[in-house]
């Protein structure tokens, strides 16, 4: 898999011109105010410095950004021009042979997500549900909402969006695996893929586009699917009348246009989304992978601030969108007196499939 140069040698995914990042350096040069760096939650910078640093990045020079970026994906959202500053940081780090997380951890994740021919494919015709490499997604995709679809699950490294490796400055791994994953979907004849995870949807839309990769199916964001199904199941819906807070996952930053669907879902579910400090563009990372990259002090601080913020609202539920966030933060939010629940389960609760109050 991969392209060859004129001499016939394999070009590494890193250097493959077919998979070059569609980044426009001129856009950065003309950018009036580098929100990507100024809004960053982990770096403190003055405007002049920010301008200087972003230019250094586009020129491939050393920059403090390469040391200090915590891979929260925020800048992908902050940049008003869609110029993919985070992907650029990722590429630059790898070019310079830099590690973000320690090298053995980086390699562990690469090995852990290696394709081994152990994928599970259900009965897939032209619509499939992607459980990525997160088994809990597949388990949740049951009940009325997924009626007729829950057996069309695909699960396994062969179908996993490799985006997670951007946390580890291994865009080359992404570029190597993603075409294979896309090819696997094509082989199955998938026309429409309901992505149960933001990262999958973000990979097949934003990232694929950023690298000029053709996606042979229509990615559907699962929350759009939930909205449609809840509208179809209106009669069975009993508004929950609960107060919730929401944990926005990092990968939603690649598809910020989809963040608005969350509010619409809460409205139809009868869940009142309580305002708090760390929401929308100001959302905080769950701290899971952050711990591997930035250490326990940073991760504990981020988690503490986030949870205190949630607890202050007095909400009953903390709604999650990402199973990894839920695994990391779930027990801690429970200790703080909130009930952790995934958005899909909240929908099931409104349909009476899960007893209210049960977690």
């Amino acid at each position, binding site marked *: 898999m991969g392209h060859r140069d004129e001499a016939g040698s394999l070009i590494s995914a890193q250097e493959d011109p077919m998979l070059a990042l569609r980044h426009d350096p001129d856009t950065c040069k003309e950018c009036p105010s580098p929100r990507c760096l100024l809004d960053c939650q982990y770096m403190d910078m003055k405007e002049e410095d920010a301008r200087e640093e972003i230019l250094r990045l586009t020129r491939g020079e050393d920059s403090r950004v390469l040391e200090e970026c915590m891979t929260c994906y925020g800048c992908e959202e902050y940049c008003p021009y869609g110029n993919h500053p985070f992907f650029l940081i990722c590429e630059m780090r790898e070019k310079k042979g830099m590690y973000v*997380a*320690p090298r*053995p*951890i980086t*390699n*562990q994740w690469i*090995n852990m997500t290696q394709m081994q021919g152990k994928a599970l494919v259900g009965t897939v015709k032209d619509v499939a549900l992607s459980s990525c490499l997160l088994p809990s997604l597949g388990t949740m995709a049951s009940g009325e909402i997924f009626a007729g679809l829950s057996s069309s699950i695909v699960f396994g490294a062969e179908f996993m969006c490799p985006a997670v490796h951007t946390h580890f400055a291994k865009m080359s791994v992404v570029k190597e695996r993603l075409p294979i994953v896309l090819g696997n979907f094509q082989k199955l004849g998938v026309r429409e893929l309901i992505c149960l995870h933001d990262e999958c949807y973000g990979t097949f839309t934003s990232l694929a586009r950023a690298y000029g990769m053709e996606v042979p199916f229509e990615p559907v964001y699962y929350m759009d699917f939930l909205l449609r199904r809840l509208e179809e199941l209106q009669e069975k819906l009993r508004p929950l009348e609960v107060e919730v807070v929401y944990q926005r996952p990092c990968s939603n930053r690649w598809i910020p246009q989809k963040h608005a669907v969350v509010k619409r879902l809460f409205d139809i579910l009868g869940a009142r989304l309580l305002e708090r400090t760390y929401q929308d563009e100001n959302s905080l990372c769950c701290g899971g992978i952050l711990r*591997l990259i930035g250490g*326990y002090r940073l991760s504990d601080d981020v988690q503490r601030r986030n949870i205190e913020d949630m607890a202050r609202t007095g909400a009953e539920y903390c709604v999650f969108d990402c199973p990894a966030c839920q*695994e990391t933060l779930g027990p801690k939010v429970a200790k703080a007196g909130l009930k952790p629940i995934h958005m899909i389960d909240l929908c099931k609760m409104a349909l009476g499939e899960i007893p209210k109050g049960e977690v």
Partner: protein
Amino acid sequence: MGDILDSLREIVGERWVSNRPEELWYYSRDPGVLEPHRPDYVVAPQTPEQIQRIVQLAARERVPVVPMGNAMALTGLVIPLRGGVVVDMKRMNRILEVNERARYAVVEGGTSQGVLKAHLQEHYPHLRHSLPDAPAGTTIAANVALHGQGRLTQQYGFNSEMVCGLEVVLPTGEICRVGSPSLGPHWFSRGPALPDLSGLFLGWLGTTGIITKVGLRLYPNKRFREVEIFVTDIPELVPEVIYRLTHLEMLEDITVWFQPKPLMFKDNYHVTIYFTGDSEEEIEFKRKMVWDALQEFMDSKDGGFMGVDPLKPRMLEMPQRSVAEFADVPRGGGFEYSGPITLVEHFPIYAQKLVELAGKYDLLYAGTARVISGGHAMMFAISFAFNRADRAMMERVKSAMDEATEFALQMGSIPWKPNFMEQRMILQKIDPVTRELIQRVRKLLDPNGIMNPGNWEVD
């Protein structure tokens, strides 16, 4: 021989002696790779007095006696090399006493690890003992008799160092108390401040007597138990990592493991760090001390802490049942390991040797090391899985184990729970004066040469 059968029946009762083919077949072997040898009888006594009479009979008739726990040492120490009487100790399964304030328990010679754990959990939840990862059916007496290790070995040394008194049936048939129980009813010391006679029975692999009671130190059991796993891909760093961690003096167990499969563990060395506490504050404080101690390696990107949440339930289980699971990896029900005791600084050399042996003999391997008493030494386990239905594979494992032992001796390490061939290799290499002393002690205690013969012998 018929007389011996009658005598044994008279001692333990007819139902507790067997010379039936079924028992003889089963008790002639262990789950390791060594050849079986048939006993003449198997007995399951219930009291030290019964054992005493069995030994006296054996001494009279010059019949070998081989005591046995659960046969999980895997190095054939319970295989009756010269036939004779196998003594299955497991009927003597009681807990005789727990002294809460002095923190010790007195158990019988066949009491299993699991039963002590369950008893403490139920009645003394703030006390624990150094539980090994061997299956729960293994016995405490066997474990200490072969210098086994457990969860508290990093803090307090070999499990044998936690013995605080013994009762032993000598090969000449006397019942002997060792340590403070020889002077009174308390079991707080296995030797000091008397001449330490426990050294005559610990590590002798059943050749100097049969242990019928063990006094075992217990330790505080905290409310919380946590684990972190530090990962590096440079084996040379492991000794330094261990040095810094042990300097903290606040950890429970430290083990290091590496194996090629599952893929997520490939090419990495995992340092599993256990720590306990009675409050969240204590736990978080210890966690931070652990992270800070290794910060330098994280800064250089050479090592880091991995996400443990998915692995936690397995890692925190005691005993860890997943240790036994390695046996079924080649779908064949067996594994064998050699676990020499050596300096921590030898870790990278041993790691390299293990991979080399696995390659040479085409075997599935796992490497584990456990830190002993704060880093004074470590046990490095060279482990190979085998399929019991594949004789050729079993032979390769045997050869690999032999080579591993040779290597260990070259390194000046001590092979742990050596099989009889490894014992010979040790006796050949050992200082001749030491060897002489070992033989003298054996002759003194077992003049009739009946106790587990074939072990700790030169010829």
